[in-house]
């Protein structure tokens, strides 16, 4: 260590030089770390291409980062608008409307996109033992979730509509892309899966462009690609269903979808009673389980979307049982009494607010 000692002579200039050296090292360090994110700015990757538009009966918002962000965002918007024209229940020329109009009749030829969506919907219906059922369209119409005027239907009307609720009655033929609704009371409604499914297709589409990261928000169905510019994950909040102005926590998301279903999203009120838009395919009534909201964290949006609806129908206990049999996704369950139950595989991914108490289920 002797060689580190300063000479006793000429002490003052030495100190000054040492200070200069120290400041130089400090500034160099500062410059180095400041340069790392700005290099991406210079590469043109930091400014996103943002598209916001109404489609599929909700608001879409897509933020894309990368060299081909503008072209990718345009292609993403075009794809969503194409899906809207194919799947809208309100457009009588859409594939879904044509299918519903021909219920009880012969098979109908549909586009590849529609065939693939219905195929996915039936797969998820089977996966959830029918808790998610895409054939509840007639019920939704009956309750007025498709029209301006809503009313509480009587029991006879509900029984007639229930006659058409059976996902196993949908016939698909992949040789000629035809679908047949065998019962005349059957009407498809793909609102419980279409946006999640579209999120997956958008992710595939954006992968064809030179995209670094993207935030896809299809009416509250969130899909994230990559991570933020600073390398941290995207922060996706989950709303408190008892007070939608606040959050129960945040999901730290990277290459994943976060999808929430809840009675607070869309509902109707008659005589002071609130009816959610999520239909119970068994009773024909809007769901009245002990769950206020279900948030699914999954790699596939179509699956997450269908599961969020299915678990709302199942209720707390059956949802936990279902997850224990299929623990390949994460779930946050909020009960009507304000309890929050979270699957153990979301520890460290879902971070609750400091004043929120969470009960974890499943083996860690």
């Amino acid at each position, binding site marked *: 260590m002797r060689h580190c000692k300063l000479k006793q002579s*000429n002490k003052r200039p030495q100190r000054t030089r*040492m200070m200069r050296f120290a400041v130089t090292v*400090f500034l160099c*360090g500062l410059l180095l770390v400041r340069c790392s*994110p700005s290099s991406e700015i210079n590469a043109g990757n930091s400014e996103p291409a*943002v598209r916001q538009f109404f489609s599929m009966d909700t608001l879409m*918002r897509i933020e894309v980062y990368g060299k081909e962000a503008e072209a990718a965002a345009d292609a993403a918007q075009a794809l969503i608008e194409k899906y809207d024209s194919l799947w809208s229940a309100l457009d009588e020329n859409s594939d879904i409307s044509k299918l519903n109009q021909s219920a009880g009749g012969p098979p109908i030829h549909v586009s590849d996109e529609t065939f693939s969506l219905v195929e996915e919907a039936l797969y998820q219906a089977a996966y959830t033992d029918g808790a998610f059922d895409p054939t509840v369209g007639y019920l939704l119409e009956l309750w007025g979730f498709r029209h301006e005027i809503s009313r509480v239907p009587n029991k006879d009307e509900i029984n007639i509509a229930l006659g058409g609720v059976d996902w196993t009655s949908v016939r698909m033929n992949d040789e000629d892309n035809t679908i047949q609704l065998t019962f005349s009371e059957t009407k498809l409604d793909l609102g419980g899966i279409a946006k999640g499914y579209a999120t997956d297709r958008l992710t595939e589409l954006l992968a064809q462009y030179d995209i670094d990261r993207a935030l896809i928000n299809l009416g*509250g169905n969130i899909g994230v690609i990559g991570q933020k510019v600073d390398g941290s994950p995207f922060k*996706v909040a989950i709303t408190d269903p008892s007070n939608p102005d606040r959050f129960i926590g945040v999901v730290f998301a990277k290459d994943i979808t976060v999808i929430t279903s809840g009675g607070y999203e869309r509902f109707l009120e008659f005589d002071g009673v609130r009816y959610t838009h999520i239909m119970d395919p068994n009773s024909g009534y809007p769901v009245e389980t002990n769950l206020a909201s279900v*948030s699914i964290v999954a790699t596939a949006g179509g699956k997450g979307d269908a599961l969020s609806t299915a678990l709302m129908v199942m209720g707390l206990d059956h949802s936990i049982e279902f997850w224990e049999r299929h623990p390949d996704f994460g779930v946050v369950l909020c009960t009507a009494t304000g309890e929050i139950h979270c699957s153990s595989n979301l520890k460290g991914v879902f971070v609750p607010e400091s004043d929120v108490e969470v009960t974890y289920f499943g083996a860690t």
Partner: protein
Amino acid sequence: MAQRKVSLFGRFRQFGLRSSANPSNDERLTVLSICISDVVLITILLFVALGIVPVLNRLSAYSQRQTSDAQVVVIVSGEVIFRTPLDPSAGSKEFFVNADGHPMTICVGPEGAYVVSSDCRDQFCVHSRPISIPGQSVVCLPNRMILEIVENTGDGSEEISSAVDESSEIDAVAGRVGGYDAP
């Protein structure tokens, strides 16, 4: 030839003293080496620099948001049909807007912008709380209306703000339509 180890500081010192020293009297080869105290000092300085960066970033993002010339815009069918500056120092003002034949009343005041009345059936927009930060929005799905805070670009146009930046507490909200709504 004899070798002499000199620390980084020593090397600097040597450069500085060369003019006053007599090089011809010192034939030994000087080898630059770094002693432990140098490493410790450099490490400390780098850590301090690293620690300061997020603070600087946050300060810069916060000041950008606070000093930006924010505008309140109402977008219907993709077109901006109403725009007014968001001035927290000004009093509350109510504005009537026609959202494709649907009458709506917007209030812009110190607490932000919000929907006072709407003829939509679900009234979600009316129950939404005021917004004041670029990127926040209130959406009326039945009337296809977006009330949004945007940055004023200075050329008369508006830019839809990104919900994502390094200082964002929240980038998106699952189950909520529209822009993020920071707590």
